[in-house]
């Protein structure tokens, strides 16, 4: 390489640059070290929330809160996918949030293990109004090791069996009320040339929803509760095997069509299939309603129906039970300086104005007195169905991929996808799960 500068000049420049690089790197280390006391500054509360269309509810709450409080809340919206990573890397550093949004269960289990969160159990015990403010099964679902670490702060997201009224009408069919109905409907719709159930099998989590409901109906909520508490042998429960066999049976019957393994949810593959009358039913989280409403408004108005997941003959589970994401929670960092104010802020999620904002946003709140407010919801019928279903549910099982620690959830999703694709037999599936 030819020198542009003279050799002498060039070396001087190099030496200067080197000095700058070295000293600035050292300086950076220094400033990091001096602030390592942890946990946010006095006088402000850093609140982190997952950024999406619903964050305006939290924005409004922060604004109301700051009007009356001396300690000011600063809301940081963290964009989608990187949220979990970001919280995880920040916790235990001086840049950690004082209060943060989470999914309960496995999403905070590691933090609980390391004593990084405020145990809210005494608060809930001391303040029956706080505990009674939310639907029981939802508060319970947020527990980790039998203690409360979260205050519910968003709408509920149960998994619902959606059906396409138009397709049902053409086939002269009724929505399923029993497992026999389900099996009969599979043949009916196959005869009509319609996929019985839309399934986004390229993403593993929609398949997980099937497994969650099947195990709940077959073995009851306690089977997964045992798994969640760390008992790997519980995967060997006969109910798990029967669940896996039922999945195999459904696949063999053609319940999901032939190409479900290539269908995605994130790019609306499954939802479009369902809305375009090419699939009769779709098992999906309650957000499917809002998703369809923005993409296929006419479909929602005219032919979107919903019902509960039916019971399975000889199943031990209560057919009123629900699976899904009960809600999202606020948790408080144990290192937070302004603990008192932090508590006040999270309790804000039960106040009337907040609940009203949630309803206006199209969410179904998880507070126990939300019923009368649902009339002002943009889709009151749908909101009331959801609310009734969840309120009546003896158990609300948290989505397994959220409930289990990440180290287990990830391989679990892979195994479930393999089960649906026929790459693992039912028996091998239970063995693989026991081995995690």
């Amino acid at each position: 390489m030819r020198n542009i500068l003279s050799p002498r000049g060039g070396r001087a420049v190099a030496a200067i640059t080197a000095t700058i690089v070295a000293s600035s790197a050292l300086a950076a280390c220094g400033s990091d070290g001096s602030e390592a006391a942890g946990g946010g500054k006095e006088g402000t509360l850093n609140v982190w929330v997952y950024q999406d269309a619903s964050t305006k509810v939290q924005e409004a709450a922060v604004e109301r809160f700051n009007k009356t409080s001396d300690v000011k809340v600063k809301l940081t919206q963290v964009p989608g996918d990187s949220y979990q990573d970001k919280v995880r890397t920040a916790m235990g550093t001086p840049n950690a949030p004082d209060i943060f949004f989470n999914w309960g269960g496995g999403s905070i289990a590691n933090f609980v293990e390391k004593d990084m969160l405020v145990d809210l159990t005494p608060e809930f015990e001391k303040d029956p109004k706080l505990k009674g403010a939310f639907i029981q099964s939802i508060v319970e679902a947020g527990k980790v090791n039998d203690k409360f670490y979260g205050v519910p702060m968003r709408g509920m997201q149960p998994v619902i069996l959606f059906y396409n009224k138009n397709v049902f009408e053409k086939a002269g069919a009724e929505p399923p009320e029993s497992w026999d109905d389900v099996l009969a409907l599979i043949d009916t719709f196959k005869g009509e040339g319609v996929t019985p159930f839309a399934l986004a099998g390229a993403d593993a989590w929609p398949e997980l929803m099937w497994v969650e409901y099947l195990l709940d109906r077959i073995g009851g909520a306690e089977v997964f509760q045992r798994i969640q508490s760390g008992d790997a042998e519980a995967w060997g429960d006969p109910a798990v095997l029967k669940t896996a066999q039922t999945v195999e049976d459904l696949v063999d019957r053609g319940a999901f069509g032939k190409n479900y393994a290539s269908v995605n949810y994130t790019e609306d593959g499954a939802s479009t299939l369902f809305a375009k009358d090419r699939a009769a039913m779709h098992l999906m989280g309650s957000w499917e309603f809002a998703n369809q409403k923005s993409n296929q408004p006419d479909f929602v108005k005219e032919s979107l129906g919903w019902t509960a997941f039916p019971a399975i003959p000889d199943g031990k589970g209560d057919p009123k039970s629900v699976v899904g994401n009960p809600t999202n929670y606020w948790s408080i960092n144990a290192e937070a300086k302004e603990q008192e104010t932090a508590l006040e802020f999270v309790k804000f999620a039960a106040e009337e104005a907040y609940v009203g904002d949630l309803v206006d946003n199209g969410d179904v709140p998880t507070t126990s007195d939300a019923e009368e407010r649902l009339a002002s919801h943009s889709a009151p019928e749908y909101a009331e169905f959801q609310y009734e279903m969840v309120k009546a549910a003896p158990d609300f099982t948290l989505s397994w991929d959220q409930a289990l620690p990440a180290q287990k959830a990830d391989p679990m999703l892979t195994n479930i996808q393999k089960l649906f694709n026929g790459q693992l037999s039912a028996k091998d599936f239970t063995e693989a799960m026991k081995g995690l």
Partner: protein
Amino acid sequence: MPASATSGTTVKEPATGVVARPSGASGAGRPGLGWAVPGLLFFAFFAIVPMLLVVALSFTAWEGLGTPEWTGGANWSRLWNDPVMRQAVWLSVLLTALSWLFQTPVALLLGVWSAGRQRNRAVLSAIFFLPLLASSVALALLWKTLLDPNFGLIADLGPYIGFPDGNLIGDSRGAFAAVVFVASWQFIPFHTLLYQGGARQIPASLYDAALVDGAGTVRQFFSITLPQLRNTIITSSVLMVVGALTFFDTVLILTEGGPGTDTTIVPYLMYRTGFQAFDMGYASAIATILVVIATSVSLLLVRLTGFGAMRSTREGM
């Protein structure tokens, strides 16, 4: 402090440097070590130090929280017996080989063609170049939509290529083929550009002489163009191989490593283990293996092909 030491030596060196220059031609000698200092420091801070940390982490169990816990060789023995890792290494090797086999001929022919003076060449070259301008994430999302089995292009094309239900990315071979195709399709323009530049450097006199000797287009290609492009082929191949070994984003978006783990190549397995399962210790072991493989493969390529010596293709001209 290291800076002051280097500045001390730099003051003395120029004199000897100038004297030692054999040819005496201006600036023909090698620049002094001082030039390398900023680069070396940069490399040390952002590559060597993190790499050493990763090697250290591979001997620990760490969930990304608190202090890593020393576990000795536990991650390494697990790595040795992990069927998913074995599969991932195999898939990475396969991806590297297949994408090289696919990209090289296409890029070579396109590059040589676009080096010519045909009509419409500039317009067509600009069109071929387009995939390189978009981000790979955007491209992967585009292909994901095209490969939707019910509404995408594959719903119509599938029956002709052996996927009657459009079930391409849900099929083990289909999904892998899709990754190879999309990755190659995306990077062919870049390699085309390399070959175009290389082909333009070939002196026209060679072709004139060949023409006089009665060589046709095909003969000219194999006897002149190809040998003259030797160094370009090596450069492009090294880039392709190293690129394929560390390839990641298309898999993340297009197939998410599935169906099952059938498109889980090593970098994706590392990401999944580290940032989805938060098993940082094990992910570090995978990362270490990846660094070792990628470095040795590229060193090997450089050795075997004589790339380091870079013999001129125009010796004796």
